[in-house]
């Protein structure tokens, strides 16, 4: 066990000060230190994308970062998008298009695409699939996720 390090991380707009081992994964920090369990881990080796969060506004795999690297930075997780009573348009579209089954990959998908839609307000199917290639889902066959992203993009662009 190595010496703990003090860090300050802003997660979903709230500042957290914690003492952590340098080796603690950012994903474990978010889930088990902060109790924000919406972020999932499906592989912890950087392939499945279930652990995707935003790091200073950009999607990253939180299982491939250490919590200490987030010192002084800003993280957003799925909990920042919407609430059960007030879903984000992307979450709403996922529900309407049945883009989730077990829901385990879903937080990662949402964080990937909430960012993607900002950059691609009018995405094609190919662009959506290309953007999804870093997120695995075992349940849905992906088709309904493509449909949900298109629907959300249309709505968010006010079309």
């Amino acid at each position, binding site marked *: 066990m190595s010496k703990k390090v003090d860090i300050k991380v802003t997660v979903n707009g709230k500042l957290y000060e914690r003492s952590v081992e340098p080796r603690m994964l950012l994903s474990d920090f978010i889930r088990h230190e902060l109790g924000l369990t919406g972020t999932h881990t*499906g592989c912890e*080796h950087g392939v499945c994308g279930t652990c995707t969060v935003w790091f200073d506004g950009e999607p990253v795999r939180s299982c491939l970062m250490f919590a200490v690297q987030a010192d002084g930075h800003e993280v957003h997780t799925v909990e920042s998008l*919407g609430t059960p009573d007030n*879903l984000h348009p992307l979450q709403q579209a996922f529900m309407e298009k049945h883009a989730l089954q*077990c829901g385990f990959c879903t937080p990662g998908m949402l964080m990937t695409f909430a960012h993607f839609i900002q950059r691609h307000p009018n995405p094609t199917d190919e662009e959506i699939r*290309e953007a999804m290639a870093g997120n695995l889902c075992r349940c849905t*066959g992906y*088709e309904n996720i*493509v449909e949900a992203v298109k629907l959300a993009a249309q709505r968010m662009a006010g079309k």
Partner: protein
Amino acid sequence: MTTEVKTKVIGKSVWRNEDPRLLTGMAQFVDDIELPGMLHAAFYRSDYAHARIKSIDVSAARARPGVVAVYTAEDFGDYWHVGPLQVPPPLAIKGAQFNARPLVPIAKDKVRYSGEPLAVVLAESRYIAEDALADIYADLEPLPAVTDMEKALEPGAPLVHDDLGTNLAADVYQQVGDYEAAKAKADVVIARRFFKDRCAGGAMENRGIVCAWDEKAQKMTVWCGTQAPIPMRNAIAKNLGLSEDQVRLVIPFIGGGFGPKVMTSMPDDVLLPWLSRKLNRPIKWIEDRRENFLATTSERDQIHYAEIALTKDGKILGVKDVFYHNTGAYDPYGMTVPLNTQTHTLGQYDVPNFYTQIKMVFTNKMVVTPVRGAGRNYGVFVMERLMDLAAKELKMDPVEIRMKNLIQPHQLPYKTGIIGQDFVENVLDSGDYPASLKKAVEMIGYEKFVKEEQPRLRAEGKWVGIGVVNFVEGTAVGPYEGARVTVGNNGKVVVLTGCSTQGQAHFTTFAQLVAEQLGVDVKDVHVTTGDTDQFHWGAGTFASRGITVAGSAVYAAATKVRAKALSLASKLLETPEEELELADGVVRVADLPSKFIPLGELAMKANPTRGTIEPGVEPGLEATAYYAPPHGATGYGTNAIILEVDKETFDVKIRRFVFVHDCGTVVNPMVAEAQIHGGVQMGIGTAFFEQLVYDDNGQLLNASFQDYLMPKATDMPMKMELGHLSVPSPLNPLGLKGLGEAGAIPPPAAYAQAIENAIHDVDFEILDMPLNPSRLYELVKAARKK
């Protein structure tokens, strides 16, 4: 028994009740559970696939700060025990030989597969627990490993279970008619060897368990993402010498099941509850992805020696299939998987003579238990390939030869004479097989493609091919499921079942069944699918049985509650029952909607605090019901695809993907279609991407998502075109059949046919699965050399 039901909510694509929580990170999965004082477990696992254990030194691990305990098999003392079998031997089949070797919770004396646990560490954090694994030294004497099924049965092969004297785990044959006599009369006989390799269950959430012994209450609570809550509770209670009510199993949200999560008596659920009681501390174990690949359970590998005998005009006279089934190091799940292969081989075809034999083999590989498709796809692959080879030999069109041999609607229900995984004779209960094939052929535009498009594309130098294959999916097997439906004083309805849910939308579809009967909003029906303190009867979610078996129980319970509500309301409203209706959360006079009584108020009246209730009436607006099918219901369908093989890279691109299926009455079309989508993804995976690659030493070479390829969004067809048929099953009042595994079954067979058809200028046969670009390249290269 099937009645035409006019439905309000059944058959509607209702949005899911569970989604708002899942979408916002508010749904609790097993790894989200934190308890005060909780210890974290990590397993030390064997690197060898086959080895004798000489000694295990855990002293350094025990001395590490933060480590609370380290246990090896020795340390478990008398508690160490094997098994039990989760599925009993197939005694219903005459002459069946079965050698039971149930799971060992932690290896003692000998290691039988790579990844088998040798020690378990309990520490204050998972990080420390994993550190301590590096402190353990196991002195293992490696033994020669056996991974090949045929070699395993040769004399002198290394023995997985020394005491058995053989690696033969089971030998079971079944027959209908007389294949050899049929063969003697045949014009054409085609025989081949087929091989299909293993794939992983691959749920995105790994397995996990949290258990907490409460010394004061003398009660064990376990949270676990299992597909089979009641069997697991019963197993844990038995292991610990507790009565069933002293063990509570709570099922949180489950991040996908796909088969492996049906297992009980695995190392974690045998050892950790015992340790929690012993140490009087809660314990959590969450599997990591590597462990999931190495040491959970996986899909089968099988070798088939199959032959088909036909007349010269393409009528099948008989089929013979002798196959090897690799069960891995143990056989805890009996013969479910190879029996599924047996019952699904003939699929939709009318074959009078059939001989099928399973030789189940122990090897030094991970244990095999059902994974979505669960052996069905192997039978279907073999049969569909035989049909293709026959068509080629007889110069017939692949669709024509299929059409010629289909079981006709008037022949249903069709007794196959083959006993299935549920130990009763397999019966094809309902459907219209020719309609399915016709529909798929029409949807994909078979004629036009073959006559116009394909010649044009071939002239352009493209390798473009079409494949059309049929399948059946035995679903909804027994023994039974149950449900309790209760109307609360607030008018909301609670549904309890023991059938857990891994993403199949039971929180919504079960709610729809209740809403239909009680006239409430689907959102006002709260479904709990696995809390054994609340409902403790049932078998679990597997074999595509959730909606049909548990759903039928839910529907029956709701029907009883409806009758109770009507009877009570009739008295209170002084109106005959026939004039009442249930709608909008009330019981009201149909012609006078202002005369009503809310369901919540009725619930209160049904549970008076003084006075009495009528003799013979149970209190509350509540009822429990069970449903036990006489045998499974059989779904079916046809898969038609058009694909292109890249001449340079040998990669395959799907151009069209048509899937026709029949699952009887559909409760929620949106959910049903998505079940097909997900199944197809696994089907395509096992056709062209997914393969657990073992070397001769029994080492799994691709135990990560980096190396094991699951289809990504870019690997899937752009659009799955689904065609629906709906012939209700006569086996249950709603006419339901399952469909959870359908999509996973036919794609390998469809790929094989279409790829051979695409590479028209090379004479070659695809007999092994899965393919990938390099295997396909090798096949074509070898054929060109000839």
